[in-house]
């Protein structure tokens, strides 16, 4: 398949754009594969891509229930960052960040990773110390982080209410300049195209309806497109983990599926050149290249698979937005949507062999899965190929809960809605 470049664009433009080929083949399932990956979202696709690229395992199928990227990879607010407090998280997400920095070239697909920074605001001296703790933790692992003064913040983000009389005045902030945003759909499409070019079958509209077993061992799946056997079955369906695992007879997991809403405003000329998070609520906002402000806040806070939320959170998020930017009150919200998040018990993901023989599980991404897409696939592919966790994802196995080795970046304990 042809490489994408300015030249290929020009060549095709001259021939009336009639020679473009599908970004990935519309494959039909074969009777068996070395690896079947359930879930054609970002993580499933990147897993397939790295299975092929890093481990030479190309006899792989990715099964997607709906259209490719219909889950959270196409529903998130696109922030990419590695500003975590705990070293297990920081190391993992920083690895991801490094992969992001070269992802467009790696995939020959412009995922539009824009390193315009992510800025966490502090509204009390205590919060600023907490951010300093986090930033210093990052710096001690070689990750970039800086504190910004209110004056610097005011210059960087015009329109922000910097007044001392604000209900929650801004005392400073923690900036990670290398963080930023990417074009979410492009990540799914780029990985799909990349995996497809390496021989992976990407099978859309293929819903898994059950698991094939040989004794205890999982040896394939049944689907609306027939039985598909596999030596290894990988599950990467964050947002639907409960449903898919139930098909395998695992009905209890350290996960609650909760709905997270996101919003986009009408298109505006450049207004905000970074991603901003509010310290007295869960609000965060960035601006897309098309000009829409992309923003969100807290979870709705209850179990849901409905991909729809309710008004209280809508109102909460909007209130926080105009508290930070009082000039945005007349600006209008254009779209809202809901994504279903695997909220884990410590706010950190699960990448593991098992829990059944022949099965591999990647889930529990809470609302931070998008930025993990490259590293998640990279580590999960390693786990599948080698039957052992990658060094970076070793802390994220399932047994950490019983061992008391939770990775609780927010310190909220086993109350998923608070992570």
């Amino acid at each position, binding site marked *: 398949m042809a490489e994408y470049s300015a030249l290929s664009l020009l060549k095709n433009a001259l021939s009336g*754009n009639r020679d473009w*080929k599908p970004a990935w083949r519309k494959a039909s399932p074969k009777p068996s594969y070395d690896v079947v990956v359930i879930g054609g979202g970002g993580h499933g696709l990147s897993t397939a891509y790295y299975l092929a690229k890093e481990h030479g395992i190309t006899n792989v199928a990715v099964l997607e229930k709906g259209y490719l990227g219909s889950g959270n990879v196409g529903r998130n607010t696109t922030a990419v960052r590695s500003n975590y407090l705990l070293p297990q998280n920081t190391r993992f997400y920083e690895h991801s960040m490094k992969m992001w920095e070269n992802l467009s070239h790696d995939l020959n697909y412009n995922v539009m990773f824009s390193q315009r920074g992510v800025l966490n605001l502090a509204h009390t001296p205590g919060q600023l110390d907490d951010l300093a703790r986090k930033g210093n933790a990052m710096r*001690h692992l*070689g990750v970039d982080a800086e504190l910004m003064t209110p004056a610097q913040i005011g210059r960087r983000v015009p329109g922000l209410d910097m007044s001392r009389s604000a209900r929650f005045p801004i005392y400073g902030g923690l900036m990670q300049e290398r963080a930023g945003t990417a074009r979410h759909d492009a990540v799914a499409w780029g990985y799909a195209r990349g995996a497809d070019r390496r021989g992976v079958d990407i099978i859309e509209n293929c819903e898994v309806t059950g698991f094939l077993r040989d004794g205890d061992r999982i040896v394939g799946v049944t689907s609306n497109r027939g039985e598909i056997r596999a030596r290894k079955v990988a599950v990467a369906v964050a947002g639907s983990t409960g449903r898919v695992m139930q098909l395998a007879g695992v009905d209890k997991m350290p996960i609650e599926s909760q709905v997270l809403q996101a919003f986009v405003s009408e298109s505006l000329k450049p207004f905000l050149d970074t991603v901003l998070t509010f310290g007295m609520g869960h609000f965060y906002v960035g601006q897309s290249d098309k000009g829409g402000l992309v923003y969100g806040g807290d979870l709705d806070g209850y179990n849901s698979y409905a991909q729809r939320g309710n008004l209280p959170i809508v109102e909460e998020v909007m209130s926080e937005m105009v508290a930070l930017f009082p000039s945005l009150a007349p600006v209008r919200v254009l779209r809202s949507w809901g994504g279903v998040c695997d909220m884990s018990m410590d706010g950190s993901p699960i990448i593991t062999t098992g829990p059944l023989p022949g099965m591999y599980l990647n889930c529990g991404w809470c609302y931070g899965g998008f930025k993990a897409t490259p590293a998640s696939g990279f580590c999960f592919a390693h786990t599948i190929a080698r039957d052992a966790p990658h060094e970076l994802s070793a802390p994220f196995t399932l047994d950490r809960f019983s061992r008391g080795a939770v990775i609780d970046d927010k310190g909220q304990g086993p109350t998923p809605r608070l992570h």
Partner: protein
Amino acid sequence: MSPRRTPSGGRIDRLRTIRFTFDGTAYAGHQGDTLASALLSNGVSLFGRSFKYHRPRGVLTAGIDEPNALVTVLRGDVREPNIPATMVEIYEGLVAVSQNRFPSLAYDVSAINQLGGKFISAGFYYKTFMGPVIGPLKGTRFWMLCEKIIRRAAGLGRAGNVPDPSRYERMNAFCDVLVVGSGPAGLSAAREAATSGARVILAELDPTFGGSANWSGETIDGEPAIAWASDIVGELRDHDNVRLLKRTTVWGYYDGNTLAAIERVGDHKATPAKGAPRHRHWTIRAKNVVLASGAFERPLVFAGNDRPGVMMASAAMRYANQYGVLPGDKIVVFANNDSAYSAAATLNKAGATIVAIADLRQDVSEDCRTLARECGAELLTGHAVIATEGAKKLAGVKLAAFSIAAGVLPGNARKIEADCLIVSGGWSPTIHLASQAGARPVWDDDLQAFLPPESGNGWYGAGGFNGTFSTADAILEGFAAGRKAAGQPEVEIGTAPDIEPAALDPRPAPVFEIKANGKAFVDYQHDVTADDVRLAHLEGFVSVEHLKRYTTLGMATDQGKGSNVPGLAIMAEAVGKPIPEVGTTRFRPPYAPVSVGSLAAERFGDLKPDRLTPMHDWHLENGATMYSAGLWHRPMIYGEPGETVEQAYVREAQTTRQAAGIVDVSTLGKIAVQGPDAAEFLDRVYTNLFSTLPVGKARYGLMLREDGLVFDDGTTWRLGDNDFLMTTTTANAGKVMQHLEYFLDVVWPELRVHLTSVTDQWAGAAIGGPRAREILAACVTGTKVDNEALPFMGIVHGEIAGAPVLICRLSFSGEMAFEVYSGSGHGTHVWEALIEAGEPFGMVPYGLEALSTMRIEKGHVTGAEIDGRTSARDLHLGWMLSKKKPFIGSAMMDREGLVASGRLELVGLISLDNRPLNGGAHIVAEIDTDNPHGSLGHITAACFSPALGKYIALALVSGGKARHGKRAHVSDPLRNRFGPVEIVSHHFFDPEGKRMHG
């Protein structure tokens, strides 16, 4: 007279002239005009520029579905971008400007983008701008350079940086029946529901009720439709049980029949009424909903269909009938259905010349032929518009013979001069709200449209929403829906009202696109062409969602109201499947864009309430600098002129340790734990025993979470056998209450315990220092406060200045200290009495900084150490874990990870370079400023200790106690602070507690 204003007619008030400006030019219109109708009446045809190609655009519609004519409304320096000119009611002094153009609307340099047409087709950016793999532009750098340029070109209006001074409000409403839309169907439904006695809310997004009755030109039972509508509105007004909401867009259909609507209360006014909001955000909880939201007319997709002067047929009709404006003098009609013929007739009656009617169909009904004849138009059946001409304004159209089976037929095209082309491609019912409510639409081949199911869980449909386009049937459906929604039994429906002129056949020919050379737009605003849709198909982006995401079709501010179905149809043709098999979009809120401010409502400018202690005003009057602790406001320091924060807190702490100090502790969470099982309950929730606590004594308690980590701490006072007063940290008060309530209600319902938040019942003043007891003795009556009457952790009742108080001798500062609780209403009274009593002893009030300083000196933990990751042992509180009883967390606290070596443990630090330490700094064995690494832990709290005369800190450090006496370094690259520290016990000061035991 404006050039395009008809001599009479319309619902505008021709006696009232309103002046406004657009792009700096002054214009006049009339009361009742929208910005679009007023500008059209002035002969303006160029309204805006498109998103990608910056093509000149006119006004396409007359309503909320407008994709092209977006403007920014300015109120002073406050900018309201992206408002359709069709939705702006003009008011005296209105200032509107066009958008997405530079330097001007007429001459926009970015229009050069059009030349790159095929190069910048859908999704082009995914394929390029990746830049070199090596060199200075490697990684993301090249892309970010390109992105800067792209971002500047993209975007529509500009948001301002000046705070919006407007007021926004919320309104909660409850009703039996909410009727959405006030056209004939909605009015009929509302009347029927209201008559049955139901509580009814009727919401209309336009400034006038009546919907199509305002512009249809029909008569209903011999009466003009407008009069028919106003009669019903008048009738509804007389009902007590009806609320009429105009300028109100119902935009969200949420769970439990909760609907959200925005009422534009003040947008049409130069200055709002006093106290009135600009927008009111309605949350309507309706038992049932009648959806009578009508339908949108769809454009046809053909080359040059975006030229200013091309307009929807129904919009043209509306401009003529409702606003008395002709969109053109010489009009060509282009349609695949009958409805455009009514528009032609209307425009002709209003004074325009209908040059020709090009109908895609070969067979046209006799009714239509008559209408064409009557308006003097040349009827060209089996014809299509294949191009339009003109620069920034339509000058003519090109027509060619067309067959539904074969498309454009070979042969000579014919040119016709015209300044307006009105188009009808059929109608799409406005099913958005039903879709939000979960309804799955069904494709109807006759109407070539997605129709809603008959009814949903909580709603009924009527009229155009149902695909019912005859007014007579709409009225009957409204009647039936109104009855059902009001819970009335169904009745025999009477005879249909008599409508003149008779309804035309609503079924369009199944044609959506006319293939010819030139850009044919599907999504006007986002410049998505029919070729872009086909390109998406070619590249495999076939599913509706992929189509949307790849081409951005339907993602513009009009949300695809007109483009959704044509886009699907073109994709369906490319795929070779029927339209319903390609799918439809599930609509989500909002139905139309909603101001962010309206959703913030009363929280705009007031995000969170202030929580104030009873002594708040005293603090302010006495020079306190306040800061936020959650919702509370607490004194940080009581600074004296010229003092730095450090000087102030050092003075306060020092004075407290030397004489006495007083601090407001009213914010501590206080929970009354009452009942015969209260002691048992406390034994279960605290790690230590409380059943052994005698009445009149207090005890420090520690709580864990179920997972075995520390949750909260505080003292609990036994006031009676069955009566405890629990205190919690300020930050955790709410969480602790919820935690306790959960266990009582869900886990141990057999325990007879009541919990009540009494945080606000009590004002708390903590007074500590060597002179504290003397000060108390000087002002307390009714009890002694000596060591015998009031031993450490003892509680007494007494009075201060006539107010009853509860005094507990406990200490956070490490001094001889007492917490004095009084009724909140007496708080300031008691506080002032204490201050007065303390004056001779040199007592000072102190704030949180000094409080924190003294607790650091004592090594007491707070939220900085109890951070949700620490165990009791990490904090050296293992001695509080009772072995005599199970308690919450006891089963989980010994898991291997929680007792592993190397965990972060509480230690003290002393700065060895006499420079301040910072909270959040890390601890390392060896400094490496260039490449910091090897963090052993971090500082949780730091201060200058007046007691030690040193900068000290509490820290959580791996290894903890084992490092006591060892040297380490702070490493704080964020604040460029590196330096040596000594690790010591966290009990810096008076470790034996001699001072507080006295």
